[in-house]
């Protein structure tokens, strides 16, 4: 056995070559679009670019202006309210529906289809329909009034202090079906024996869900959370379709601020500064999670 000479280690770059070639689109997207685009955006947020990107640096001016703009502050506040409630309600409603669906019910397919179909519709459509239903002159308010409760008021889209909840109603309608689906898949993945053990232990159904099943569905909840959260940060279409940010600026959201200032106000610098703030928020939430979930763990 004298093969030492020909034991040359082949070039590491060439190993797994096909895989690398096949991943080029992914690498390009990740590096050029997501990473490059992000850096580019951050970079230009320190300039006073207007309609077109321009390299005149103005330091932190854009950020100072951003954080003193009432509209930005309202946007942030709205996003926080919308985010918290939409997380809570999506998870709660989604889980409740999934739990109901998991009771070996009849017509499961029908119910599931009903809960999930809004997911196939765009936010534009969703916004439109709910704008129509919530319109005080035609919608629920007028119907209830015509039934005799003439002082009944339900005009969330026209009341600045509650308009964000009006948007929430539509968002939940559109999104909870998917959450329900994910939760249902998670519930179905739970070992039957756990249920049996809990029954033998005499634990009531709701306690079993609360103390045993939900904690066991951590992974599902995290996946769901990520999906919902990414939707929340990006919320835009729905607001545009339902209220265009109104009344006044009561239902503005950060993504809309970015868009409006980049394109309508033709102040790219300001838009980029707002983008950067959003990216930072996202990064603070996501990067630790993504690292834990995908970076640190080796495949077993």
């Amino acid at each position, binding site marked *: 056995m004298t093969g030492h000479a020909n034991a040359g280690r082949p070039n590491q770059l060439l190993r797994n070559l096909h*895989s690398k070639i*096949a991943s080029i689109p992914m690498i390009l997207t990740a590096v050029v679009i997501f990473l490059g*685009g992000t850096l580019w955006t951050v970079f230009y947020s320190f300039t006073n670019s207007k309609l077109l990107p321009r390299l005149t640096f103005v330091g932190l001016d854009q950020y100072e202006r951003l954080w003193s703009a009432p509209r930005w502050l309202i946007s942030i506040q709205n996003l926080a309210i919308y985010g918290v409630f939409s997380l809570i309600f999506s998870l709660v409603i989604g889980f409740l529906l999934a739990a*109901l669906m998991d009771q070996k019910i009849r017509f499961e397919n029908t119910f599931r289809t009903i809960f999930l179909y809004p*997911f196939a519709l765009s936010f534009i459509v969703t916004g*439109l329909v709910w704008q129509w239903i919530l319109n005080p002159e035609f919608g629920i308010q*007028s119907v209830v009034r015509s039934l005799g409760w003439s002082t009944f008021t339900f005009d969330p889209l026209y009341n600045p202090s509650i308009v964000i909840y009006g948007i929430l109603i539509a968002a939940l309608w559109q999104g909870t079906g998917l959450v329900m689906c994910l939760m249902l898949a998670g519930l179905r*993945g739970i070992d039957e024996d756990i249920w049996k053990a809990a029954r033998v232990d005499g634990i009531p159904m709701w306690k079993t869900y609360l103390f045993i099943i939900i904690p066991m569905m951590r992974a599902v909840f995290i996946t769901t959370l990520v999906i919902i959260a990414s939707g929340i940060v990006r919320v835009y279409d729905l607001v545009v379709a339902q209220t265009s940010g109104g009344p006044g600026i009561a239902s503005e959201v950060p993504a809309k601020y970015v868009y409006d200032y980049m394109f309508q106000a033709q102040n790219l610098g300001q838009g980029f500064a707002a*983008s950067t703030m959003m990216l930072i928020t996202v990064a603070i939430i996501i990067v630790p999670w993504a690292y834990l979930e995908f*970076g640190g763990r080796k495949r077993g």
Partner: protein
Amino acid sequence: MADTISLKTTAATAGQLAAGPRGKKPRPMFSPRNIMIYGALIFAAAYYLLPLYVMVVTSLKGMPEIRLGNIFSPPLEITFEPWVKAWSSACTGLNCDGLSRGFWNSVRITIPSTIVSIAIASINGYALANWRFKGADLFFTILIVGAFIPYQVMIYPIVIVLREMGLYGSLTGLIIVHTIFGMPILTLLFRNYFTSLPEELFKAARVDGAGFWTIYFRIMLPMSLPIFVVAMILQVTGIWNDFLFGVVFTRPEYYPMTVQLNNIVNSVQGVKEYNVNMAATILTGAVPLIVYFVSGRLFVRGIAAGAVKG
């Protein structure tokens, strides 16, 4: 509890043994439990169905009837005129051909975009699951974080990239954009799915002499129907429903149906023609809805296979 039972213990005779309940425990159809479960489900179903009902009912009414009032009342007189108008004669600017033109554009955009984005994402997922190379995880992490970036933020950089590539405004450019923005979630789905397939299968194929592509096409693809269905539904709905990219990255001859919908809905001629708007809305949503209704069952299965394991 054990004590209570042993207290009640009696020296039972065989006759006594035979007494007592026997057979199936009676479970009435209208038990409080069932009433609660089905009550809740039906209530929820009503909430989810209400908008669809309103859309359909409204689209079948004439404008006078709508103005008179109740959006929930069924149409007194069914008219299909709003549908016809929405489809073929609603105007935007000078073009009065309704949604019909946008429909075919949407088809032209959706089909290749769906195919390309799924093809690329599935290969990514496959490479990440089975052929990991150094740094692959880093790119993947960037990709996932990218899923959170608001589209609006990325428009400008992408405009520049496409301009430099000379693809701005072309269908190819739009397909690329859809592929880029579909990539994070789809790659995640496919990666999770392929990871959940037994690794030994992959090893066996390698021992059999199959390479990267042979394994992908001959071994992995045929096993991946559920996840492809999920990806297809996500992409078809996503791309079909897209408005922003369709309008920013193409020129009018490619404008998808949603742009037409937006135009119809936002071009107010006097009063809003709610019936036409609703008809247009349903027509625009019809394709994803049909796709979903047809393959919804596989969707749930695929979600279970690809999304939940994370």
